[in-house]
């Protein structure tokens, strides 16, 4: 049925929804590949040292299987990312538990398991470094300066100092990591996998397998969740699968089980953040002196970019004339940390928002009053000296959230106390500074015969609605019903590199390109009476010349625009057990324009519950450099019974540089709930916990000692 009304802003049906509710959607492990063997990664059992020996039990028939070591790598033994420090397979040095050492492929799982049991690896252990304060290797340092912080602190009426700790978190996509590598003629290797960024994987395959652009083909299968956990990690899975497939001369399926996924893959960067905030007696904010220390784990991965995001958001959504942010990320002998929704900002904003609470407590004023006094407004400058010229919504979201908040709970049980907390956060849309310019993301739209159109993009659908919103944007740009627009598969041999599906950039940046291309294609079709089909329009990102950023001084326009959220959370704290239950959660969010309101709400609700988990029950305990919480029975995320009804108020304050006014929304929901929960716990109990997760053990201990 054809509908001529505009698609953008309407909750059209999810493009691949029917496949998902019928079981027709094919995720990586659902794919049947004839003749495929099963692969497995053999990993280090020690956190630091050298491989002394690898012994293959002669009683096992090694002719049945294929074994790949670092020596078999045709290209560079490197997982291509930012720094070339992470090997695809350890050749001698071991820097973390679970570090991949060798790979096995076998025709069936029993033989695979038997082969694994027949390998013995001996190590010479070295003293590992786990303590952040003892780390000797630095991945990245960033300093952001504005005004004169030292002078401002000296002149302040009051200085509040506080240190915060933020913990590891696992992305916990319900579909584990996996890839299938298929060797083809001409040295071609096709990898189908669960991933967010086909071209990241493409580059990594080329480097490690010594392939050219055409020989490496990466295809994204339907992907069961990513949240950043499938931004860079899939390159490792793909390289491993490809190495096995090449040596075996046949397809290899490398699908992680949950235990391996929990034990070996990247997590959110944990760290310590210290604030010194100077104010005048009347509450005016005069100085913010902030130190951030993040634990990158054993290899660099994306740590410098995570640190960057953290640093840029560290001062919170507030206007302050004197700011100094000194951020450092260091190495420890723990599994490398990596991308996870928010990417440094949740950590930084956790600290920034709680500082408002602590300063308010010192001054004896409501923290909401301080927020309204300090919040960024049009014309204010951020910590990096960016003047905000449009789409600044701090006040709008605060007002909307307050209006929607339920009346406060009254406890009818003496051992349960109720409390409420509020937070205000912002999140930059798109890559930082000159990031989008460097990416130069590309898309194309083709007009085909039959009046249909196809969008060619490497941006992936991972549940957030990419395929649907792109068709909405394109359909409206073209002036056609949405049914006439399709999205080509995310196959690097078919589609251009639109940049990675991360950083809250897909709707605003890539969607923006799609809108431009659609409008241009519409014009060209209108002008030519009998166009030669297919007719293709390509678009490549061009940074608006209004955006100025200096990578050296870390000053200027860090992001084209920010999205905003105000979150109010109610908790019930059981004083007998320290358990914290979130009973109500409401957030007012400005994302400029909700291309698809239901999907936008879905991003907000899902992201917020992930943040609730991070703040309460998602604890990872370390033992000798490995995660003790390495099964789903021990790494716990909220169930339906733990989740409150989450209410979302969409506020639209359009951005002139986004398609239909849209900004990014993917990560912002991760930023608000954690500090609001800590504030709510304080409201309920009178105690401050300056860390997440605020487990019942910590809550009870804090209540006991107060």
């Amino acid at each position: 049925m054809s509908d001529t009304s505009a698609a953008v802003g309407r909750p059209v049906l999810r493009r691949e929804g029917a496949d998902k509710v019928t079981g027709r959607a094919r995720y990586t492990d659902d794919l049947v590949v004839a003749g495929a063997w099963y692969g497995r990664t053999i990993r280090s059992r020690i956190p630091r040292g050298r491989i002394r020996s690898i012994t293959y039990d002669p009683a096992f028939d090694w002719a049945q299987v294929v074994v790949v070591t670092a020596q078999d790598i045709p290209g560079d033994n490197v997982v291509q990312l930012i720094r070339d420090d992470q090997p695809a397979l350890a050749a001698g040095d071991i820097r973390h538990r679970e570090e991949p050492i060798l790979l096995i492929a076998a025709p069936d799982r029993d033989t695979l398991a038997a082969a694994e049991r027949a390998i013995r690896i001996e190590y010479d252990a070295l003293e590992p470094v786990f303590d952040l304060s003892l780390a000797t290797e630095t991945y990245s340092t960033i300093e952001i300066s504005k005004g004169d912080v030292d002078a401002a602190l000296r002149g302040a009426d009051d200085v509040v100092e506080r240190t915060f700790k933020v913990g590891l978190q696992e992305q916990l996509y319900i579909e584990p990591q996996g890839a299938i590598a298929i060797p083809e003629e001409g040295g071609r290797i096709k990898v189908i996998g669960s991933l967010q960024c086909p071209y990241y994987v493409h580059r990594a395959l080329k480097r490690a397998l010594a392939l050219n652009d055409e020989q490496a083909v990466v295809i994204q299968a339907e992907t069961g969740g990513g949240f950043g956990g499938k931004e860079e990690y899939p390159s490792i899975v793909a390289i491993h699968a490809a190495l096995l497939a090449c040596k075996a001369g046949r397809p290899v399926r490398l699908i992680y089980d949950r235990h391996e996924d929990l034990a070996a893959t990247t997590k959110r960067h944990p760290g310590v953040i210290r604030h010194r905030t100077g104010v005048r007696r009347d509450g005016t904010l005069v100085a913010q002196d902030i130190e951030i220390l993040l634990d990158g784990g054993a290899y660099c991965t994306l740590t410098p970019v995570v640190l960057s995001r953290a640093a840029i958001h560290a001062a919170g959504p507030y206007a302050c004339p004197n700011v100094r942010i000194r951020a450092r990320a260091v190495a420890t002998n723990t599994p490398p940390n990596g991308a996870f929704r928010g990417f440094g900002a949740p950590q930084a904003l956790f600290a920034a928002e709680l500082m408002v609470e602590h300063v308010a407590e010192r001054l004896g004023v409501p923290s909401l009053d301080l927020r309204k006094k300090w919040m960024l407004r049009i014309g204010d400058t951020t910590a990096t000296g960016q003047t905000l010229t449009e789409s600044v919504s701090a006040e709008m979201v605060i007002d909307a959230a307050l209006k929607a908040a339920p009346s406060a709970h009254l406890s009818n049980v003496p051992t349960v106390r109720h409390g409420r907390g509020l937070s205000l956060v912002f999140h930059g849309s798109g890559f930082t500074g000159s990031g989008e310019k460097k990416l130069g993301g590309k898309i194309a739209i083709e007009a085909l015969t039959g009046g249909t159109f196809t969008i060619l993009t490497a941006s992936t659908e991972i549940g957030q609605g990419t395929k649907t919103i792109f068709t909405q944007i394109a359909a409206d740009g073209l002036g056609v019903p949405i049914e006439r627009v399709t999205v080509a598969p995310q196959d690097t041999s078919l589609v251009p590199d639109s940049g990675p599906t991360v950083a809250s950039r897909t709707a605003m940046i890539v969607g923006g390109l799609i809108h431009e291309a659609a409008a241009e294609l519409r014009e060209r079709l209108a002008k030519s009476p009998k166009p030669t089909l297919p007719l293709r329009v390509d678009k490549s990102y061009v940074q608006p010349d209004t955006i100025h950023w200096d990578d050296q001084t870390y000053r200027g326009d860090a992001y084209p625009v920010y999205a905003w959220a105000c979150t109010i959370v109610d908790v019930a704290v059981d004083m007998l057990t320290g358990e914290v239950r979130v009973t109500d959660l409401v957030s007012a969010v400005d994302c400029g324009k909700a291309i698809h309101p239901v999907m936008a709400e879905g991003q907000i609700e899902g992201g917020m519950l992930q943040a609730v988990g991070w703040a309460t029950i998602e604890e990872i305990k370390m033992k000798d450099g490995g995660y003790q919480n390495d099964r789903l029975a021990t790494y716990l995320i909220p169930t339906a019974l733990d989740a409150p009804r989450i209410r979302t108020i969409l506020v639209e304050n359009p951005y002139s540089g986004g398609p239909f006014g849209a900004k990014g929304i993917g990560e912002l929901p991760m930023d608000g709930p954690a500090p609001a929960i800590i504030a709510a716990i304080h409201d309920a109990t009178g105690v401050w916990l300056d860390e997440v997760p605020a487990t019942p053990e910590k809550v009870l201990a804090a209540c006991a000692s107060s």
Partner: protein
Amino acid sequence: MRFVLNGNGVSLDVSGSRRLLDVLREDLRLTGTKEGCGEGECGACSVLIDGEVVNSCLVAVGQIDGCSVVTVEGLALPGGKLSPLQQAFIERGAAQCGICTPGMLLAAHALLEQNPRPSEDEVRVGLAGNLCRCTGYTKIFDAVLACRR
């Protein structure tokens, strides 16, 4: 062993100790049922056995001899039309990445069969064995509540 699968009689000659999950996915090529953890914690492998929702990663296939099994592939109405529950999941945004969706649909289906007018809290209890990481559950509750009779 013999059992009814999505309304059709099936006869299989496999080792009874194999997981029902693997037999469904590999032998019967029904990949709608997913493996999320292999420990009975996530519910992505949920199927119905004689109308009750269970984790198929915990069922030895020998144990379903003589039983009636329903997977996500058996939820649509005759002719392939989506059931009201499936339709509601799409319309209300209860499915994002979709990996938990088959299991979630079966748990919701079993819940509604046993309790056609559940309260929101009863929906929570009925779905507590199905983890979702994408949605925050609110829209899943909405979709199930929309299908109350």
